[in-house]
């Protein structure tokens, strides 16, 4: 039983990455107590998001090693640091990579979800003091990832990045709301504000893309076109509301944008890029309708390449926008999405395709890279 008044360091297991692209190693680490404005969380389960993979592969800055990855998770508050209000030991919470301080102009405005007081950055340490809370068996620091680091039995997260959730949520479902599902559903619902009868095109039917489809579905879109190189995504997509499927390899001479323009009689109202490839961002833009077509960029570009927009085309009333976390304010909107799930308006269980114990976490990486999974739940205690 931990003493909340004076939390102590905790010895526990974590999956540590010691070199870019190398399998994670489950090791013993020590997790220090939460400092002021921080919360220590006992992770119940976590899942792998492609953004973890992108940075896991990165040799150069901001890739740093050794690091504990993971940013999609569900857990229970174990202890809180000084000045933490609203959280107590035992609370069901999800950590989020995006902060919400509630005080800065962005948090105060409904137009923005990117907290400017605690800006999103890929840092090696904690957001306020840049130091780490993890120490390995040799006493060396282990770096954080996005201030979450959920591939560990215990982690320390800044209070601006912790969201209380309804304890009746199944843990693997709550975990999805921590990143992927919220990003996709949020993008359709909050950012694009897809209206009934719209046509939507989604590039990349991973968890984020399918979450966009789910979001577009509950918003009443009439046409949801999914684009993916993996033919298996056609059947899978139908479960998420995808009405038309395009495999770019099976189009012959036609380009994807030509196909979409034909299907929608001029271009889709909303095009979402959910992979992270500049060439696809351009394709998505070309596929949007002149007059009011919006292209929404969600993918984190894998090589840092810029997006290219033909200038004469954008003059025809097109718009390109991007967001982190689907335009969602974590503390305000995750509970709303949780409610939509609990009253069965939003379906999330279909995202979970696999589960493994922590010791088999590398299987999750294999499955994702091979395109065989959407979300693989990684359980801490099993």
């Amino acid at each position, binding site marked *: 039983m931990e003493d909340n008044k004076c939390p102590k360091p905790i010895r526990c297991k974590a999956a540590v990455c010691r070199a870019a692209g190398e399998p994670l190693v489950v090791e013993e680490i020590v997790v220090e107590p939460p400092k002021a404005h921080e919360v220590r969380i006992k992770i119940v389960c976590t899942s792998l998001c492609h953004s973890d993979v992108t940075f896991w592969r990165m040799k150069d800055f901001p890739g740093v090693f050794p690091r504990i990855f993971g940013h999609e998770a569900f857990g229970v508050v174990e202890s809180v640091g000084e000045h933490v209000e609203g959280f107590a030991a035992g609370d069901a919470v999800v950590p989020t990579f995006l902060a919400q301080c509630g005080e800065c102009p962005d948090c105060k405005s409904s137009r*923005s979800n990117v907290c*400017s007081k605690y800006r999103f950055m890929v840092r090696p340490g904690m957001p306020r003091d840049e130091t780490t809370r993890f120490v390995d068996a040799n006493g060396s620091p282990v770096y954080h990832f996005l201030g979450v680091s959920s591939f560990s039995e215990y982690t320390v997260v800044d209070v601006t990045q912790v969201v209380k959730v309804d304890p009746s949520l199944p843990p693997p479902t709550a975990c999805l709301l921590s990143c992927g599902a919220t990003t996709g559903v949020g993008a359709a619902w909050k950012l694009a504000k897809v209206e009934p009868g719209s046509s939507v095109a989604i590039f990349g039917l991973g968890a984020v893309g399918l979450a966009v489809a789910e979001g577009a579905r509950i918003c009443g879109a009439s046409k949801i076109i999914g684009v993916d190189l993996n033919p298996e995504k056609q059947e899978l997509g139908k479960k998420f509301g995808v009405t038309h499927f395009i495999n770019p390899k099976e189009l012959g001479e036609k380009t994807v944008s030509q196909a979409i323009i034909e299907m929608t009689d001029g271009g889709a109202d909303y095009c979402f890029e959910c992979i992270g490839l500049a060439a696809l961002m351009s394709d998505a833009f070309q596929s949007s309708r002149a007059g*009011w077509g919006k292209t929404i960029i969600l993918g984190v*570009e894998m090589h840092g390449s810029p997006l290219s927009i033909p200038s004469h085309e954008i*003059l025809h009333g*097109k718009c390109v926008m991007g967001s982190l976390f689907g335009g969602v304010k974590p503390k305000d909107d995750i509970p709303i999405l949780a409610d939509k799930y609990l009253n069965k308006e939003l379906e999330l269980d279909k995202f979970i395709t696999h589960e493994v114990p922590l010791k088999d976490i590398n299987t999750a990486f294999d499955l994702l890279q091979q395109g065989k999974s959407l979300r693989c739940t990684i359980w801490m205690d099993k």
Partner: protein
Amino acid sequence: MEQSTAKKPIRCKAAVSKVAGQPLEMVEVDVAPPRAHEVRIRILCTSLCHTDVTFWRMKDFPAMYPSILGHEAAGVVESVGEEVVEVSPGDTVVPVFSGQCGDCPDCLSDRSNICSGLPFRFLPGMPRDGTTRFAFAGTGEPIHNFINVSSFVEYTVVDVAHLVRLGPGLMIPPDKACLLSCGVSTGVGAAWKVAAVEPGSTVAVFGLGAVGLAVAQGSKMRGAKRIIGVDLNPDKCEIGKRMGITEFINPNDTGGKAVSEVIKEMTGGGADYCFECIGSTAVTAEAFSSSRMGWGKTIVLGVASGAAAPISIPSYEILRGRSVVGSLFGGLKPKTDVPLLAQKYLDEELELDEFVTHEMGFDDINGAFDLLTQGKCLRCIIWMDGASAKENGNGGVNVKPKQNGTLV
């Protein structure tokens, strides 16, 4: 006088572009009568917009030769083709390169001003049948139209979807009406409709030509608190301030710092709205970098030349809540919105007089090109000589603008 020319070709003067970048040649042309859905207009005055210059310099498609350039004008209806009920001979009209058919999903929606019924295309002739109404007098060799208007000619034929009627209640001087035909409407419209600048906003305007200054005007009308003007020409600072600019940046005077760095410093993170009013993809990228994370919008108005590189946006930057949007004609629906701007001018809410920096006769039109390319003018109003149509070799009645500017 007008009725007697109906249904017949009109022989009159035109300034024709025969070779890319060469001075326009004053020649006699025959202007065919209007076909169905078309209107023949006697141009009262026209002005030079930089987009005319961009196409005048262009060697390859979509530039076509020979052609009659010009798309900013004001005129009077001379005769109408079949099916035209919206305007009658004698009506004051402003032609617009961007159409409004009124029936298509775009015209029926308030989200779009890009008519899909008569979509904007680069055609050598009229929007419905692609043929031209202009020919060289004598040889009969056809002369291409330019973006649905062709105003560097005493008479032109315009599709009714590209025409705005200014009724008797909206009698504004023809040179002011001319400004609403493109440049000023584009700028004011962009601030009002595309960006929807709200009171207290911070705006940055890249390029203080007529469009940029109209953006400044429009932003001021919408209650923007700070309007930062960016231009390489230091003379633009003074006129800019008269048009609503609150601060001025000359990129050559920043001590080597990028303009976006300067703007981010000045504004504590970036402007709410950044307008590109030049037609440079490099400047568009700079404008994007100058916009605020979270909600910063970049609005692209400038028309780049055909060979221009695409706009390059750093992909991590766009994830931080920024957006880029473009528009033609400032997002305005011509028939619906141009009369509203004319009313705002009459109500003294919209300043138009300062845009007219020079006036000249039609024969001096090449002087306008010099002034604009040298950055020495905003709008040169080119006045036609009056009704000098020579159907029978008779002279016409000279119509000159009155001192107080109302149309005859």
